[in-house]
């Protein structure tokens, strides 16, 4: 599986409150949440983002609360993958469980710049920076995590595996 898109680049400790502010948690409708995704850190994000685009950030992405609304909002906004050097662990789980692909890659997180065009191969873990003509390597997803993502999250995965 391959995805290609333009990069939105952020720094360290992007927390769940900036990913989806608590004031919008009175709904769990993905499209409604997507309208406010990243609003407190990048207010035009929802307007600019296009299907397939990619978020790249530095360390401890998704720290803060355990709200599953955070990965849901990112996914519903059209983002096809998040790349960071590290994740807060509950976000990490929640991302896979809600069907949002995320990769860990220190080199990619250091070198990729805002607006770069990037292509990701989920099978091999290869991250190609088309703009700078560089290639970085993340660990590919193991087979069953890929299955969870392919099933669009854990609920559907379990449904088809009961």
């Amino acid at each position, binding site marked *: 599986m391959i995805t290609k898109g333009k990069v939105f680049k952020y720094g360290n400790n992007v927390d769940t409150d900036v990913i989806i502010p608590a004031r919008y948690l009175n709904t769990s409708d993905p499209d409604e949440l997507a309208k406010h995704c990243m609003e407190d850190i990048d207010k035009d994000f929802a307007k600019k983002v296009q299907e397939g685009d990619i978020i790249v950030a530095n360390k401890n992405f998704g720290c803060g609360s355990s709200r*599953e609304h955070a990965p849901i909002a990112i996914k519903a906004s059209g983002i096809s993958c998040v790349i960071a050097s590290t994740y807060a662990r*509950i976000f990490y789980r929640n991302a896979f469980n809600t069907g949002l692909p995320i990769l860990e890659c220190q080199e990619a997180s250091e070198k990729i710049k805002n607006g770069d065009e990037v292509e990701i191969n989920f099978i091999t873990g290869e991250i190609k920076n088309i703009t700078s003509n560089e290639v970085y390597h993340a660990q590919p997803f193991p087979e069953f995590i890929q299955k969870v993502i392919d099933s669009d999250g854990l*609920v559907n995965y379990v449904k088809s595996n009961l």
Partner: protein
Amino acid sequence: MGMTMTQKILAAHAGLKEVKAGQFIEAELDIVLGNDVTTPVAIKEFKKMGATSVYDKNKVVIVPDHFTPNKDIKAAEQCKMVREFSVDMDIENYFEVGQMGIEHCLLPEKGLVVAGDVIIGADSHTCTYGALGAFSTGIGSTDMAAGMARGKAWFKVPGAIKFELVGKPKKWVSGKDIILHIIGMIGVDGALYKSMEFVGEGFENLSMDDRFAMANMAIEAGAKNGIFMVDEKTIKYIKAHSKKEYSLYNPDKDAEYDETYVIDLSTIRPTVAFPHLPDNTRTIDEVGEVKIDQVVIGSCTNGRMEDMRIAAEILKDKKVAKNLRVIIFPGTQNIYLQCIKEGIAEIFVKAGAVFSTPTCGPCLGGHMGILAPGERAIATTNRNFVGRMGHPESEVYLSGPAVAAASALTGYITNPEKI
């Protein structure tokens, strides 16, 4: 290459000979836990999954402890939903008010968790059971739902930090002081993703209650789990509480650790975490004059028998300071009863403290002791985030039971050595 304790337990539960840090696995679950706040969400996801029964009615544990006895109508509705689900699914280990305790005090006491188990719980302090040599970690509601349906969960195998404990703690220094000291040293993200593995001859000087308090706060350093080696004390505890079979997993000699810290327990001072993060620690000698309005002794960190005994030793035949509220809540009904038998309940009541039924209550700002703006509490709980015990402009200072009880007598954060 060798494996850590955590890696060995995960490998065994994934049916693999070996696992490495960073590897993804799917592991069999010995226990899936939920409470009155997280289970309602999990029940909805469980139904969406199309599940009609839980994977094993003896391995799902549900403890309504956060807002019970029901705090208000909403809490009553949540509990009702959880109760009905437990009846429908014929869940053996659902604990109604009257039998229930704070989940992380209750499960070890009931013998539901033992060494070598893999446990997930939709509550971040599920890491507590690492004190028994189990792999135990907090997860979200969707994970709980999937765990209940399939009896399996996916994990990314964690790397580990080794804490080699040496020496013996001094009087009034308990597991809480040691873990606050460690979190102060490595920071709230110091163990992100990783296991905190406690080894070294010094851990044998720690009681089981000390170890529970320490494993409980591994999450406050960002860790995936905290785990202790198993010694005679652990085995004695398990045998006294459980009929379940347990398994021992010692770390390999060549196990790979990202970092190693040697901690001399004899040098640790009573420690206090100032607002608003658990890593904002100072020793009791550096605290200065901090006036308080409330003292809270209890929670899944320090609501155990030994904590009650330490508090009673300090409060015996004394009175709590004027204009100070002192709230003591034991972790389980058994601990409550033991406090009555040992005369501890009487010491607390005579001293002028509230002695409550087991509940999470004030720990998460739920009920039974909420703070007004500008008020300050010293608490033996585990989080001092903004607004944790009430109004966002209130403050929580974290300590062990000795400092909290000594402070109850003076109205200021107080060194128990000076009482």
